[in-house]
């Protein structure tokens, strides 16, 4: 593993993280010995084949799953339950369908800043965050009245409104079409540039990983998945997808990720194993 790029003063530190799920056939080790240090303001992508435990890593950081070995430490405090300082942007937006975009963000803001903000400040903060994701025009629409990309924007606004120390994004754009996805990637880059958020993002998309990340964490295939390689993306920010398309370094990074995924970690699935894997996926999802 490449440890040279690990930062000296990390905001988040994963040490020897492993997890075992009990199954009727005995314990199933999904993840083993994951070590990762993330600096403040860094954007990290987790990439790997499905079932490799990317989501499990994210859920452990989020506190939604408990590591059975090792642990995650955020700013010197061990993570053992979910909390707003580790806001999650879920793959399928997870907005409360009976609330408008505004009310969805409001629920988060009211819960978190219950005592620290006045009503007017809360309103301003909610509107500010919706504005960040360019959703001011549809604040008072309910999720079923807006498009998938807009829903995901609201999901991001809700997460940002929690003022998280670290923003966790679980395949945030996976369910969107390519054009919408590009728009949202641009939005995230823009917001990250302005606010300097620390982000861990799960993705399947090699271009997305190279475009957005400071480092790409490539995971080996499960069971007992772990970090295979870490690739540092040394491209100047802000990045522009059109200019990068011709950039030899960009293409080289892309090629490195692809070769990891399709040569080193080529997924050969015997048919009989499918069942087990899909079960594992269901658990880690």
């Amino acid at each position, binding site marked *: 593993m490449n440890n040279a790029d690990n930062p000296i003063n990390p905001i988040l530190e994963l040490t020897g993280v492993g997890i075992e799920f009990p199954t009727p056939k005995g314990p199933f080790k999904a993840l083993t010995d994951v070590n990762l240090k993330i600096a403040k303001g860094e954007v990290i992508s987790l990439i790997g084949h499905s079932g490799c435990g990317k989501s499990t890593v994210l859920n452990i950081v*989020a*506190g939604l799953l408990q590591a059975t070995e090792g642990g995650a430490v955020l700013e010197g405090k061990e993570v053992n339950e979910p909390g707003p300082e*580790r806001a999650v942007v879920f793959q399928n937006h*997870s907005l*409360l369908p009976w609330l408008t975009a505004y009310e969805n963000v409001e629920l988060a803001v009211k819960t978190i800043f219950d005592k620290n903000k006045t009503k007017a400040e809360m309103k301003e903060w909610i509107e500010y965050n919706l504005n960040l994701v360019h959703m001011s025009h549809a604040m008072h629409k*309910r999720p079923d009245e807006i498009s998938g990309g807009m829903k995901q924007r609201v999901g991001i606004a809700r997460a940002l409104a929690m003022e998280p120390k670290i923003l966790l994004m679980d395949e945030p754009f996976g369910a969107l079409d390519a054009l919408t996805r590009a728009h949202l990637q641009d939005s995230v880059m823009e917001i990250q540039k302005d606010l300097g958020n620390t982000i861990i993002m799960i993705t399947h998309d090699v271009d997305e990983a190279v475009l957005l990340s400071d480092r790409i964490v490539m995971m080996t295939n499960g069971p007992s998945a772990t970090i295979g390689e870490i690739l540092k993306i040394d491209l100047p920010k802000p990045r522009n997808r059109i200019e990068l398309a011709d950039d030899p370094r960009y293409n080289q990074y892309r090629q490195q990720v692809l070769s990891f995924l399709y040569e080193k970690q080529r997924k050969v699935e015997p048919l009989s194993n499918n069942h087990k894997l899909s079960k594992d996926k269901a658990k880690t999802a």
Partner: protein
Amino acid sequence: MTSKIPTSSNSSSADLSSSNIKSLRSITDDVMPLWLQDTIKTIMLPVIGLLFFLLIWGTAAQSIDTSLGKFPGPTQAFEQFQSLMTEHNEERVKEAAFYQRQDDRNAARLEQDPTYQVKIRNYTGKPTFIDQIGTSLITVLTGFILASIIAIPLGIMIGLSKNLYAAANPVIQLFKPVSPLAWLPLVTMVVSAVYVSDDPIFAKSFVTSVITVLLCSLWPTVLNTAVGVASISPDLINVSKVLRLKPMTHVFKVVIPSSIPMVFTGLRLSLGIAWMVLIAAEMLAQNPGLGKFVWDEFQNGSSNSLGRIMVAVIVIGLIGFLLDRIMLMLQKFFSWDKQALLR
């Protein structure tokens, strides 16, 4: 809602049809605009169905002889309905006259003797068919509302905890299929023993009927609420966890709104059962509602009785239908998912 069914069948038949049928269709389309066709279908088809039913009822009734004469057809039932209305109106006139006489008498007594304490006596005439409908509605709603007050929180608790669900499920499954007739003797005895008061606010027959209705209409709401609560999307639960919502906030902001559709499904089923159970309960408990009406007419055995029972049958059906529609309207009002197809 029903207006959509003919349109969709139109289009599918147009797709399938040969050019021959297509030309026929376009002729009717020219003569009659589509909305008119739709209206005719939405109004005419139910009317045709009802007429067909009346025809079968009328013919079948002709050929059934009972010890109380011929089985009542639609005409006899309608006559009985009219006579029930007349009786009701006469009773109301009598009642008004009674109170008038009482007031006059009291006024006269007061004039003679200013210290006289006025006594007002209630009119104690026989309840009419309309009164009995009123009693039945009050009884069923009391039972149903009490059942809902118990069932919804219970269902939420059961739905929130897998362990509680596992523990409660056998009990629910055991009592769910129990007929009201089995509960009634037990309820009657318990009410007689426990509900003892010199000046009872409610009649025992009323309390017995309410409790029986409650016991039978509890289960669909409990089960559906529990299922609704248990099947909340895990993502929404994760949102709640990440926000660290307090348990009560979680229940009110996430659990209840997201299970509202299932709660209402349960409530509608419960109200349907409550109404069915009520008639049986009133028959046996002698609560002066529709059930007692049917039973009294049956015991009475006059040549009009069967006709009157038939009126009661139709009224019971109609009220049950209306109660269901009202619940549906409430469900639509409270449901956040306005697109969901509710029928």
